[in-house]
């Protein structure tokens, strides 16, 4: 654990004590994480936080409790870091800081939904990621391919060509200081939204035949899957191709891998793959590959609404995406990647992916 974080926390605390001594309104300066301070960096092509700061005052009725909670989370993280406790989940941190306020029956945190945003505040205050502060999210996802990683905590050498039918689990923390990529012969990465599709690729040894890494975050990507993909792209310089469902939700999952998300803009800066390509499924593929009608599902109101929203996002302004979104609206159906099997089970393995990659037929 990096002791610089405990130093930073102490500095913040001393600033507040000084404000109190001076009878100022005790406050913390925190980068705003609200929409109006999130923007899409056209150059770097990622979603970033701006530099607008919010002043969290104690003597403001809407901020008082949050101020107290922030100080309390800082104190607990400080203690965990000092004691070098194992990594814990945000829910566990919630319990550690929850305690009942004296002379009342009110809890410091009523609910985890109160502590989670404060953790994000602390991340920006200390300019780091929660993973560095000993906090983890439950990981979810698998990957295989010709890559070897040394786990610096356990000392194990993990060979992702030898992970069996189940594949390798993406661990909760994949930061350099604990998870060192020692060798990578794979030439690109294919990310699959759906486990079932990844599983077909794994069973048919697609990764071996095409010498690539196949990775799934099982739906909307978790933190460590995104961090891992970022490292594969930035450190190993591997091209990344993403295959999702043909619906606004699938498009968005792709965009989160690529540019990050608004709600976790700060994390996005450190977990994005601006060079990622969208391999499919696209509306044009439906015709091109004659995807049968039994794979189609009617778009619902909520889908149309989501398409409209996505159309407005800065990072969907590329002409290709605007056209694709319009085509989807006109098409009136969505197609889940699970549904590729209606063509044939190995269609995605032997026909669709090889063909798309060969022709480099991607959306940006």
């Amino acid at each position: 654990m990096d002791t610089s974080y405990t130093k930073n926390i102490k500095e913040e605390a001393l600033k507040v004590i000084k404000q109190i001594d001076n009878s100022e309104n005790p406050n913390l300066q925190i980068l705003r994480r609200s929409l109006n301070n999130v923007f899409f960096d056209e150059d770097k092509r990622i979603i970033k936080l701006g530099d607008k700061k919010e002043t969290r005052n104690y003597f403001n009725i809407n901020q008082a409790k949050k101020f107290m909670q922030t100080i309390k989370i800082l104190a607990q993280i400080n203690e965990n870091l000092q004691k070098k406790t194992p990594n814990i989940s945000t829910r566990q941190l919630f319990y550690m800081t929850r305690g009942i306020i004296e002379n009342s029956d009110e809890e410091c945190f009523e609910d985890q939904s109160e502590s989670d945003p404060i953790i994000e505040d602390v991340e920006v205050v200390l300019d780091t990621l929660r993973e560095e502060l000993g906090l983890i999210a439950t990981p979810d996802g698998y990957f295989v391919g010709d890559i070897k990683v040394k786990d610096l905590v356990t000392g194990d050498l993990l060979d992702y060509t030898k992970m069996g039918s189940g594949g390798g689990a993406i661990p909760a923390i994949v930061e350099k200081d604990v998870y060192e990529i020692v060798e990578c012969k794979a030439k690109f990465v294919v990310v699959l939204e759906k486990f079932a599709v990844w599983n077909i690729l794994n069973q048919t040894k697609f990764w071996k035949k095409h010498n690539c890494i196949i990775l799934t975050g099982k739906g909307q990507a978790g933190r460590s899957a995104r961090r891992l993909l970022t490292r594969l792209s930035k450190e190993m310089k591997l091209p990344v191709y993403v295959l999702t469902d043909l619906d606004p939700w699938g498009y968005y999952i792709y965009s989160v891998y690529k540019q990050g998300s608004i709600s976790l803009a700060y994390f996005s800066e450190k977990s994005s793959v601006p060079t990622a390509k969208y391999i499919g499924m696209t509306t044009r593929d439906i015709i091109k590959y004659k995807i049968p009608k039994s794979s189609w599902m009617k778009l619902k109101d909520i889908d149309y609404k989501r398409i409209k929203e996505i159309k407005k996002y800065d990072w969907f302004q590329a002409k290709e995406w605007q056209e694709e979104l319009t085509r989807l609206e006109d098409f009136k159906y969505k197609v889940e990647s699970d549904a590729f099997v209606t063509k044939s089970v190995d269609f995605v393995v032997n026909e669709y992916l090889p063909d798309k990659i060969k022709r480099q037929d991607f959306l940006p």
Partner: protein
Amino acid sequence: MGNEITRAHELAEDHKEISVAEFFEKNKHLLGYENLQKSLLTCVREAVDNSLDACEEMHVLPDIYVELKKIKENRFKFTIEDNGPGIVKEHIANIFGKLLYGSKFHKLQQSRGQQGIGISASVLYSQLTTGKDTKIYSKIGDGKVHVYELHIDTKTNAPVISKEHTIYGNGRGTRIEMEVKGKYMKGKRSIFDYLQQTAVMNPATKLVYLDPEGKKHLFDRAVTKLAKRPKEIKPHISGIELGTLKKMLKITNARNIVSFITTEFSRLGKQTADQIIIGAEVDPKLSPKNLTFNEMEALIESIERTKVSNPPTDCLSPVGETAIEKGIKKELHPEFVATITRKPAVYRGNPFQIEVGIGYGGDLDKEGQATIMRFANRVPLLYEQAACALTKSLMQTEWKRYGLSQVGTSIPTGPVIFTIHMISVWVPYTSEGKEAVASYPDIIKEVKLGLQDAGRKMQVYLSRKKRASDIEEKKETFRKYIPEIASALSRITGNDAKGIKDKLNKDLEGRVESLEVKTEQYDDLELNKGKTEKEEIEEVTEELKEEMTEKEE
């Protein structure tokens, strides 16, 4: 063919005149005698209303005694005694023994009874249900008591006096004793409820009530000054019907049409009269008796086009904001009362005036819908709440704006009581039962504006109250988290927790003061957010315009 002539003649033989007493004997539900409970109440109401009217006419503080005694199942003896002027001997029989006989029918004056039908209908109900005569004692202050026992001959609508004698006695007043079939109930629309509401809107009245269970209730005076006696007025010209005009033209003594207009109608100067006549293109020197039918029509149309000033308002005698406030406080003990007496207004040529009271909190029931007490010329309206214009106006008012809970256009909920009082020389009831005011747009408008006036007062009170508790709450919140902050900062830095805590607590006290000042400003800001009175009047007027075009009368 011969046969058919016979049939028409046969049918003709059956035709005869029907006495008004017979008519109402069969249709007693039209007069409020619908069921046993309501009938008993109607008897009490008619008598109490008469007593109050009589006392006011003599300008004496009313002192009324009401007694109900149970004779047997569904049979009561009802006694009432007042300190009014009494009734002169010659009129006693007709007043009690003849329907459609009274002093107020032809007057345009604010009063409780209007039709000369109330108390004689009670006598009719009494004889119909119990077969007994009604007994009347009258003292007009000449040292004598005239005692009558009588009933009504329904065939002729005339009194039948069975006993009559005179004894000696001092003072003035009237006492009535009658036996009626009825049912005694407690709670809403009970006799107690009616008397209490009467006490609220007649705060100069003292009422004593001995109920059938032998319990004595005192509704004491809240003020000792009677409101001024309302004056009689002439009819107002606006909204006059052609038929009425025709009748008036026939009986007037005015020599020409100008003097007809200026003398027979209320508050009409020569200038306006000229304007009407010019508008009708009628010869102003024409004798009223010589007007042709077409000229009359032209006159009516011109009247409709001419702007005339409102009728005089000295014919109206409001209870007054202070007196109503005292009445509400004395009987219901709320923590806050707002009252509004609106300026007089006019519907279809009849002057009227609206008084509104809102009581909040205190002893009022916190659960369920607000209580609404409706009054017309100081008389409580107990039935047909939903059909009444006063209730409708209240439900159409947006109470959330004034700090009360309300679902859609329903009666608001919470510890609230509303009193809505309409006074007029002619209250337009929806039926002779006198239970609900008809929905004339002008009346709805005035009630809404009155409710909004009072609502604004209440809202200022409620938001002051809320502000004060808000500040206390805020202070408490800030105090609460200080120990947690101090301890956390101490854990991080090693500094002394108690020192941080004490400093923060000290700082808090100083800040609360400035907070209180700021909050007052908030008060103003929030009030500004509400609509101004002018805007509200415009809004209400606009709504009514739409309604009027829909169901124009």
